[in-house]
């Protein structure tokens, strides 16, 4: 395939306005990304979702940071230990009607969760699963759309693989607080900066954070600057969209065209 031979030239940080050579390189990058998306789609196990992975409704401020533009059904994500980040990820599915389960986090702040947009009527907490956390997670994932788990102790590879296949079958999304083998992406929160507090005065109002997503499939981590929470307790994006969803859509289409040309 000639198109794949171009990949070493792909450099995503080529900025606009760098002359016609840069423009050509930008197009190359697009082609490479499009072809990668195509290969990815062909490698998928299920037929129905070959081109359109089934996505959980994800909060728009976070959606485009994630590979495929949202939390995928049946996938596992690894999240750095931050309750606020977990809540932000749960907010979208919960607001759209999914049931959410939180396993092994006795310190999960209910009030903040509601302020972030979770529906408490569809939130289930299992604060102390003890040694049975894996069994509990698996049985809850059978019925609940999104399950957050903080692993109690390390799980064996076989158990993880069993859980992964169960998730795929049921279409539930797993968010693991901490490290986890074979995740779709790792979502981390860095460079947190609170505002509103002086030295002896004021009170916390809002926080700026950088959310970085590392996935197996993108050549480099995608990150975005967010207000979480913003002064109205919501979640807001600060920087312009890295890659709007419309562009992603056209990239897939372009890949299809490129594929036709190659074939």
């Amino acid at each position, binding site marked *: 395939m000639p198109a794949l031979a171009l990949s070493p030239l792909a450099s995503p940080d080529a900025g606009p306005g760098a002359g016609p050579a840069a423009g050509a390189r930008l197009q190359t990058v697009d082609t490479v990304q499009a072809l990668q998306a195509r290969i990815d789609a062909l490698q998928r196990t299920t037929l129905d979702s070959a081109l359109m992975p089934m996505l959980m409704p994800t909060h728009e401020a976070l959606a485009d940071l994630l590979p495929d533009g949202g939390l995928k059904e049946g996938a596992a994500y690894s999240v750095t230990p931050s309750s606020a980040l977990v809540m932000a990820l749960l907010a979208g599915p919960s607001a759209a009607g999914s049931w959410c389960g939180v396993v092994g986090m006795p310190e999960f702040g209910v009030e903040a969760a509601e302020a972030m947009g979770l529906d408490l009527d569809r*939130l289930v907490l299992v604060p102390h699963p003890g040694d049975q956390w894996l069994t509990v997670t698996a049985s809850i994932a059978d*019925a609940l759309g999104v399950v957050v788990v903080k692993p109690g102790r390390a799980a064996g590879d076989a158990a993880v693989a069993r859980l992964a296949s169960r998730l795929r079958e049921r279409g539930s999304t797993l968010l693991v607080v901490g490290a986890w083998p074979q995740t779709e992406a790792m979502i981390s929160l860095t460079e947190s900066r*609170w505002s509103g507090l002086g*030295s*002896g005065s004021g009170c916390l109002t809002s926080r700026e954070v950088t959310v970085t997503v590392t996935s197996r499939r993108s050549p480099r981590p995608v990150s975005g600057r967010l207000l979480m929470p913003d002064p109205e*307790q919501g979640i807001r994006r600060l920087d312009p969209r890295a890659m709007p969803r419309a562009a992603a859509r056209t990239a897939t289409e372009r890949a299809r065209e490129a594929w036709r040309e190659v074939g």
Partner: protein
Amino acid sequence: MLRALCLWVPDWPVLAAVRDGAARVGVPLAVVAANRVVACSSAARAQGVRRGHRRREAQSLCPALVVLPHDDDRDHRLFSPLVDALEALVAGVQVVRPGLVMVGAGGPARYYGGERAAALALRSALAEEGVSDARVGIADGAFTADLAARDAPADAPVRIVPPGAAAAFLAPQPVAALDDPDLATLLGRLGVRTLGEFAQLPAEAVRDRFGERGAHRHALASARDPRGLVPRIPPLDLERVLELEPPLDRVDQVAFAVRRLADEVVETLSGHRLVATAIRIGFRDELGGEHERAWLHPRSFRPSEIVDRVRWQLSGATRTAGAATGAPTGPDLRAAVSRVRIVPESLDALAHHEPGLWGAGPDERVHHALARVQSLLGHEAVLTAQRSGGRSLAERRVLVPWGDRAVLTRPLDRPWPGALPQPAPATVYASRHPVAVVDERGETVRVDERLRLSGSPAGFAPSAGGAVRPIVSWAGPWPLEERWWDPARARRAHRLQVVDSGGVAWLLVLEGASWWAEAKYD
């Protein structure tokens, strides 16, 4: 015309009071409601006390009179075992009021071979329950039977008015027997003194003059009782009891033994097209200790779920410290269980709980999954959360086991001055994490009576050991003083919001002399 059998226990309120232990037998006794004598014992009657006397009047007639207030509950409560005894013999018992029941006479008369035999059978059933004086009247229509029973003297307690003779029996009775004082007074003034004279008045004229009510009384007086009998529907017996002989002392043994019982409860309910949405489980141990608790279910109980509840309750009851959150009543069990009782408490029609043709949707699946986790970890392991009012973070949420109903004691819509401003912290520690908060000189920060800090906080470290986190910015102290009037629940604390050098905000609380981290804004 319906042949009615009326069974009357004279002076039931007095008898009930004696049976309840409120008074001794043989003393002159009067039961009083609204300052009027409702019933009196024969000893009081011998002294001249009558129904309807004022209390002072009755006391003046009989100075030794014991006066008791009328208790309708007691009358009904003590009468219901008698009704059960009668229902064991005849069907269709109508309880007119405590002390007076009506039965259709036809069936019992055929069964016992005559009306008199039937009446005696019912009387002896009451005698076995300890009520020796009961009068029976059998006549056409309930009204006539009632009067016949009252007409029967104590030494000939069964009065039978033959079929067709009701009008003749009623004719000499006074109009007061209609139990309508207004009408009786008016009829007396019109010169009508007996039911026979009243019955001779033309029905249309009575209706014109006295209206529907008068027409109804006229029909009664002329032995044309329009009422039928409305038999009581015996309440369903849904309670199931399991006696364990020998008593069992292990939770799994009891749970195993209870399985049949749970099946039986649910089968009985579905036989009546019912399901239970709440049950009460009671245990009794060898030493006589009792333990009871109610369990709710978001849908309806299945046998396996009842067994789960039995297991949870038993392991909670035998736990040494009363750590269970669902308020158990009574003391904990100290010995092996000898008796298990399951009572369905709130019922619903089965039709409301039928699964749909395509299943009952996602919520059904959620419930099954959570019930599975509950049977694995215990009832209190799976929680749902609700927000609640309050000042401290722990108060501002209510965690309820899945399936139970939340009881919010602190309403959310009150102002709660002293509560933290928004945003709420994302991590609220379940237990206290002691920390040391120090100023620039390395001394512990204190708060004085006038809310002044001893120095500006420069860093804090976990007391258990760990690196000092420098404090970049802070605000406070915010005082929290609650319920100073109640020493047991009083609380006095100071709170500090700080941001450490890593950009993480913390909520530090000073209570007494020690600091601890209550929450983290991570």
